[in-house]
């Protein structure tokens, strides 16, 4: 054999292997796009291995971006054709738009979709409800997390009504050991999400009020909304000094270091506090005004999973999605991520005590979702962004509750026909 021949043969083999490598890497390689960068360990150590026990030949990788950049990054990747196979779905319009643009496919005929209630699916359906394009994963519940040791020390009980809530805050403030409530307005969204959308449902009677806003029979200038802003404005006195410049991580740290007594929370905060707080903490739902017989909570459909229409591994991706509809995933997800509550009809046993407390409110209170998410954030100015802005300003004291209501209603009236009557 001449040297030349060997060289040629080697070159050919090399070329063939180089050409084959990408093909081999692609088969059964699923990439998940998500904004939950906090969950990367849970996906890599628990969820994906559990899936691989049943489907060892499908390789899955979880590739999250930061929450605030997710929508922009995802849209850019989709239009560039580099997005992953499975796409974490924001609720309502952001995902609906992806479906309309042909980036997500209908999952109506995915086996296992009947494991979810219509309410669970509503966040990822066309307006007429005929097509579902994401598998519902989880919802988050709002409420207040409190430092049990601080409550014992100051000698206060969990408040049952709004009036009691402010009495508790007053007592903690008088005592002076703890910051009564850990929140800031620097990032703006906490004011709207943990403030307005947290305490509001008690004022606007949950779904009833939310639907009335959509059909135009209620306005943001109505009493329930002004009252919500009024209650929010009272928070100012109980927040830490310089709360205008306190960001979300600052507030989390203030609470988990034991310096604050109450923390307006989303249930997703539980896992962080489990890791960081070395004191006992509990949770209570937003207390309704005295004399009202029903309580309402924000139980917001937050995250789903859809299939990229341009995925090269659609078959494997559907296998993964089908697995996600099953009870194994529901059980695993709810317990790996205490505070994200599975939307599946399957019976799920939650072990974390605080997460149990949150989910128990589903039995005694009526659930609703954030009122700005369905339909109402479709125009300019964007209602959700407006709510962030005015809620932060109401707490900062730069807008009165009445001005805030008017500003939001004016913005909505500009483009939304049912509010123009």
């Amino acid at each position, binding site marked *: 054999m001449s040297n030349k021949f060997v060289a040629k043969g080697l070159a050919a083999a090399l070329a063939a292997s180089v050409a084959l490598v990408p093909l081999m890497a692609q088969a059964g390689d699923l990439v998940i796009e998500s904004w939950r960068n906090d969950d990367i360990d849970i996906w890599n150590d628990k969820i994906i291995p559990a899936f691989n026990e049943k489907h060892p030949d499908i390789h899955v990788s979880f590739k999250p971006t930061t929450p605030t950049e997710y*929508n922009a990054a995802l*849209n850019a990747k989709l239009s560039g054709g580099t997005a992953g196979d499975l796409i974490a779905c924001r609720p309502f319009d952001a995902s609906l738009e992806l479906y309309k643009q042909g980036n997500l496919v209908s999952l109506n005929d995915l086996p296992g979709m009947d494991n979810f209630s219509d309410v669970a699916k509503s966040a990822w359906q066309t307006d007429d409800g005929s097509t579902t394009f994401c598998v519902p994963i989880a919802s988050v519940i709002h409420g207040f997390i409190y430092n049990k040791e601080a409550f014992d020390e100051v000698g206060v009980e969990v408040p049952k009504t709004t009036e009691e809530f402010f009495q508790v805050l007053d007592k903690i403030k008088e005592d002076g050991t703890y910051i009564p409530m850990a929140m800031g307005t620097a*990032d703006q969204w906490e004011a709207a999400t943990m403030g307005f959308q947290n305490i509001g449902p008690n004022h606007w009677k949950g779904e009833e009020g939310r639907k009335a806003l959509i059909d135009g029979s209620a306005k943001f200038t109505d009493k329930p909304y002004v009252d919500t802003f009024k209650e929010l404005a009272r928070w100012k006195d109980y927040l830490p000094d310089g709360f205008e*410049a306190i960001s979300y991580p600052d507030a989390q740290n203030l609470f988990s270091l034991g310096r604050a007594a109450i923390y307006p929370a989303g249930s997703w905060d539980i896992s962080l506090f489990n890791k960081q707080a070395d004191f006992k903490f509990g949770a209570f739902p937003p207390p309704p005004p005295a004399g009202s017989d029903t309580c309402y909570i924000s139980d917001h459909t937050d995250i789903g999973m859809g299939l990229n229409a341009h995925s090269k591994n659609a078959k494997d991706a559907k296998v993964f999605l089908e697995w996600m509809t099953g009870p194994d995933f529901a059980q695993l997800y709810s317990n790996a991520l205490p505070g994200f509550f599975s939307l599946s009809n399957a019976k799920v046993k939650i072990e974390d005590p605080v997460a149990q407390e949150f989910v128990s409110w589903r039995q005694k209170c009526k659930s609703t979702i954030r009122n700005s998410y369905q339909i109402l954030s479709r125009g300019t100015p964007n209602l959700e962004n407006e709510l*962030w802005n005015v809620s932060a300003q109401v707490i900062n004291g730069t807008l009165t509750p009445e001005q805030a209501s008017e500003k939001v209603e004016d913005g909505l009236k500009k483009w939304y026909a049912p509010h123009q009557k």
Partner: protein
Amino acid sequence: MAHSGPMTDWRKAKLPVFAFLAPATLIYTLFMIYPLIDSIRLSFFSATNGGDLAFVGLDNYRTVLSDPDWSHTFWNSFWNNMKFFAVHMLVQNPIGIALAAVLSLPRLKFRNSYRTLIFMPTMLSVVIVGFIWQLILSPVWGVGADILDIVGLKSLFGPWLGKEGSALITLAFISVWQWVGIPMMLIYAALLAIPEDLVDAAIVDGASHFEVFWYIKLPLVLPTVAMVSILTFVGNFNAFDLIYAVKGALAGPNFSTDIMGTLFYRTFFGYQLQLGNPTLGATVASLMFLIILAGVLFYLFVVQRRLSRYQL
């Protein structure tokens, strides 16, 4: 400027000239000029319900400049940008000149250490700068309040980054702190180029150090100062990163820190529940381009021609 070298024989030079220019021209056209023109083209279109683009002429510009919602946001970000620029012009560049003047004093010790230290922040990532300053100024953990306490001025401390009246100015100062090394270096280099005998002659004539700086050095470096100004202008009207890193794309409180870069980002890519609108985003980007272009043209045709240059 007159050509003093030998006359170029163009017939002979043609091939090498084009050969040398071609790579740069190609790359610049592909990655700068083409995207620029394409984004201006995009600004004349609008997405229909089906997702296709339809030509709408100047409608997008009319929306951004005259629709009450958009124009209010646009002009708010424009004026915020002007304030951001003004702080840099009035604070960053004078400090840069002063530092350069001090550095070029003949008897200064540890010159190189100072130069490196002052230039250091420029080399840091904006995200890190934003994070460091947020920590320093934090009302909860920050050392800002403690430092003011040492000099007995703690009462002056406030949540500056969170107040509508002070957030933008605070961010501008952070940006000044980071970038002051650039004007300092450029002007320092220009000062070093001034011949010693000019300075010596002035000192023999009885001028003080300050007079030497004011009457001899400063007029000689004015062309560099003008160039630094136009660089500041372009840089500021393109700014985005620091505001985004510290305040996010919603640039609160109440859009008081919203500059054109953040407005563009929100419009083009969307934010939270607000969906991105590439065509309106391209319109905002084109308007930014026009504003910067106007500034640069003003500099080229009005400022630069009046500057007197001295042959040294």
